[in-house]
């Protein structure tokens, strides 16, 4: 039953550019895909290790800037920039994790906020490297080419959609593999009771740093995709609102579940666009805030856990 459902969902997603006739909706799907990767990456830290990073936009931005700068300044092909973005963001994750994961709880939260704040200010003020607030226009579209052999362009929307879908699926699989492994069990043990976990020989900081690296690398991948899709990068990518959006997606979708961030990302990418459709601009953000409050209020554990409970209860009632 579950397998059939997943198969149908997969087929629908694969065929999306054919049944979603409107390029605007494909655009929303692409944005949803990019935010799915981000939400998955944040969930790894927040959901599985219990560490709330409120500086996650920094890794997204680092990925975006790495890709954009390599393409514009050194003429690197997009795929190489993508790989570099993943590596650089992962490295940044290692650095931040190594330094800040000595701390826990609210203190960790504040270090990550500060890190993102500093990176933002660097991107604004280091004119020579980042072109400051003027941003980097003209990032080339995503193309893979081997001279004379083959050429693969993701310039068109449906093509880019498949690229994002592919990376999102990969991110999902990485998360699933990681979470169901011994490492994932260590994450959860650390989240539930760190002292106990350490007493049975789990090196807390080491595992948390690992989670931070994987998480940051995934966010960097999303940043690279974003840069090549919007083809314009400016310091706004580091803004706190992006982190807040990711947190909303993870927590409202259901943290610590695999499907939660995916559902949350799709829901909260579509919601603002749907509000564009149904109300005028005066009410959009106000309604967004109110809907968010209502979601948390009625589904404090998130959409996916609530759905699971509901399904389980229904099954239990049935004879």
């Amino acid at each position, binding site marked *: 039953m579950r397998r059939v459902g997943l198969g149908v969902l997969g087929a629908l997603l694969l065929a999306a550019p054919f049944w979603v006739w*409107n*390029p*605007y909706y494909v*655009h*929303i799907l692409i*944005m949803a895909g990019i935010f799915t990767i981000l939400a998955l990456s944040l969930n790894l830290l927040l959901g599985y290790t219990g560490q709330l990073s409120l500086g996650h936009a920094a890794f997204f931005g680092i990925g975006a800037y790495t890709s954009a700068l390599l393409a514009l300044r050194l003429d690197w092909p997009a795929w190489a920039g993508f790989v570099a973005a993943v590596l650089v963001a992962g490295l940044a994750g290692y650095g931040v994790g190594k330094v800040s994961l000595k701390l826990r709880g609210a203190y960790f939260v504040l270090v990550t906020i500060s890190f993102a704040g500093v990176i933002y200010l660097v991107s*604004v*003020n280091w*004119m020579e490297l980042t072109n*400051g*607030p*003027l*941003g980097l*226009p*003209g990032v080339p579209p995503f193309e893979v080419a081997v001279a004379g052999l083959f050429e693969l362009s993701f310039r068109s929307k449906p093509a880019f959609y498949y690229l994002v879908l592919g990376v999102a699926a990969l991110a999902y699989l990485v998360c699933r593999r990681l979470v169901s492994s011994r490492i994932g069990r260590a994450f959860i043990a650390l989240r539930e009771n760190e002292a106990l976990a350490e007493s049975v020989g789990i090196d807390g900081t080491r595992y948390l740093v690992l989670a931070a690296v994987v998480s940051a690398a995934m966010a960097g991948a999303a940043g690279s995709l974003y840069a090549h899709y*919007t*083809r*314009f990068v*400016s310091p*706004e990518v580091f*803004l706190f*609102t992006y982190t807040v959006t990711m947190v909303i997606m993870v927590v409202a979708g259901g943290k610590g579940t695999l499907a939660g961030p995916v559902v949350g990302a799709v829901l909260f990418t579509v919601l603002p*666009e749907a509000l*564009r*459709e149904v109300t*005028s*601009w*005066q009410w*959009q*953000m106000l309604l967004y805030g109110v809907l968010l409050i209502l979601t948390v209020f009625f589904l404090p554990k998130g959409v996916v856990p609530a759905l699971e409970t509901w399904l389980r209860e229904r099954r239990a009632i049935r004879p």
Partner: protein
Amino acid sequence: MRHTRIAGILLSAILVGGLAVPAGWAQQDPVKIGVIQPLSGPVAASGNYVRMGTEIARDWINARGGVLGRQIQLVIEDNKSDPKEAASAAEKLIVRDKVPAIMGAWGSSMTLAVMPKLEEYGVPMVVETSSAASITKKGNPWVFRISPPSEMEALGLGKYLGDLGVKRADFLAVNTDWGRGAVAAFGDILKKRGANVGAVEFMEQAATDMSAQITKIRGTGGDTLFLTTSVEQITLVLKQGQEQRLGRKIVTTGGSSSPDQLVRQAGAAAEGTYHILFFLPWFPEAMPDGKLAKAFVDEWTKRGHPFAGLTEGFRGHDGILTIVEAIRTAGKAEAKAIQAALWKVSLMGVNGPIKFAKDGPPGKESGQSQPSIFVVQIKGGKVTLPAFMAKK
């Protein structure tokens, strides 16, 4: 029984109406024009003023019978001062609402984020506020700008530098594309004219306390401070400058300083300051088209919009007017035809003549109009034309 009959009558009425109305609408389907502005977030005030200006243009044009015998309709979207949102808004306007032309998107980074979408779908955009030079230099043939890039503004001010008596200037600017661009452009002109540039200081867009920057500037011994930021921060800088007895000649750039608001909110601290503007609502008769300017000021006041917003609001009016003129010239509301027609447009806006010259790499030039530039001074709690402006 009776109920069924009433229901039947109602139903047929609806059916008939439903069939009749679209048929009636078909020939006067309104012409849609997209508008992207920052309507929420830190620069919401400016975005809303521009929106009010677009609405005046819409109502005037519709009262005169619209364009091509059709009314015009504005589809207004909020870009939340975020480039990602600006790109999404453009996508929505072009694909969902099928607008053949857009006006926007206020800030340069928002405009730059929208530009790839214009190329992708082939829809022209009239840029009403953004000042970054790169906008018309990128080789995007769908961009037509009616606001001056900082370089043009600096050049415009250049001829008054002697009258202003600038020998040694400091800069304080908002740390954005706009502020950085203005510092570079005005710095260039000053150096070319033999003036010295002292301290160059920046402030974050949301910063409220600039006393540290002011203390530093106070120590340079310059005679003039060039100030580039929103009216809110200008107010704060003037107040805090007065608190610290800064004692400089102050020139604000960028044209969004709303001197009235400064007089009201900064009081004596605004006394003697100079402001570069693109519209003089206090002396509409001094504008290139005095009658139009006067009518715009009257309409704005009649609608109860704050007078201080006029120096932003006119951009919205001029932008919509430009697009409508292009639609009229093109003879049809289609993106490609409007783009071609924009090159032929020559009209009188509230700011003055609007006519696009080619800018950027050959073959895919963007359009850049040369707007009129004015300088005013606050004197005795009033906005005045300095003597050197009045004689020219």
